[in-house]
């Protein structure tokens, strides 16, 4: 076992545990959002181990920094720190959801271990893989239409969020 593999398992377990903590914590919304931060940062570390350097940095800045802060802002603004249903009200449909989820997941995991493509050792990455230079070149040549469409989407989202959050439309 190399250091990379050990780090991968460490951050993988951390991500799964904090994701479970986020989903199962029905008492405290702030703690739930903080668990989400831990998941995001662990995933950022795993991207680093997968040699996706720019994506790792953006993951930590945008998800860990911006998106979760927006969540926390809304939770604290609306004073939602206590929450939700009376505890222990897990209905039959929800139990069925959990069982189905675990069944499908175990199928996927068994299938993954038998795929020769995935279990093969990956080759070494070429020079400059995952850096800002390669991503920038790809983004502004092959995928320039995608960038333009994303900018339109963001504009629509800004206008939509403003209209929704305004007190009343004149």
């Amino acid at each position, binding site marked *: 076992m190399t250091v990379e593999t050990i780090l991968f398992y460490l951050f993988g377990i951390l991500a799964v545990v904090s994701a479970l903590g986020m989903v199962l914590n029905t008492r405290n919304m702030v703690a739930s959002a903080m668990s989400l931060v831990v998941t995001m940062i662990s995933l950022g570390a795993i991207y680093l181990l997968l040699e996706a350097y720019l994506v790792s940095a953006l993951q930590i800045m945008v998800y860990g920094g911006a998106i979760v802060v927006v969540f926390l802002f809304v939770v604290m603004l609306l004073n939602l720190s206590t929450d939700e249903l009376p505890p222990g009200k897990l209905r039959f449909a929800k139990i069925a959801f959990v069982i189905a989820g675990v069944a499908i997941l175990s199928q996927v995991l068994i299938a993954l271990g038998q795929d020769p493509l995935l279990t093969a050792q*990956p080759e070494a990455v070429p020079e400059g893989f995952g850096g800002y230079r390669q991503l920038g070149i790809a983004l502004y040549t092959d995928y320039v239409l995608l960038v333009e469409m994303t900018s339109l989407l*963001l504009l629509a989202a800004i206008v939509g969020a403003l209209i929704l959050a305004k007190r009343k439309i004149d």
Partner: protein
Amino acid sequence: MLPLDHVIGLSAILFTIGVLGVATRRNLIAILMSIELMLNASNLAFVGFNRIWSQAEGAPAVDGQIFVLIVIAVAAAEVAVGLGILLSMFRNRDSMNVEEVNLLKW
């Protein structure tokens, strides 16, 4: 080198946790956070597969990572609109429970 089947397996586990969150929670903020978790799981799968097919004809290929960047932008847009909906819902109903918002229910 990382075992890539384990990377994809981790992505599947995180996605399942996100689905369970959407299915079992009744708080709109918790549902939005679970959706973020699912988007992150798909991002992890993109980065993992990009690590397998890391070159095309000798040049580095980063298409999976481009997809991840776009997904991050879409997630940010989704959070902005989702929290806008949440604010107006809280203003009208004084509650975050999605079961009380049933005007469109048949």
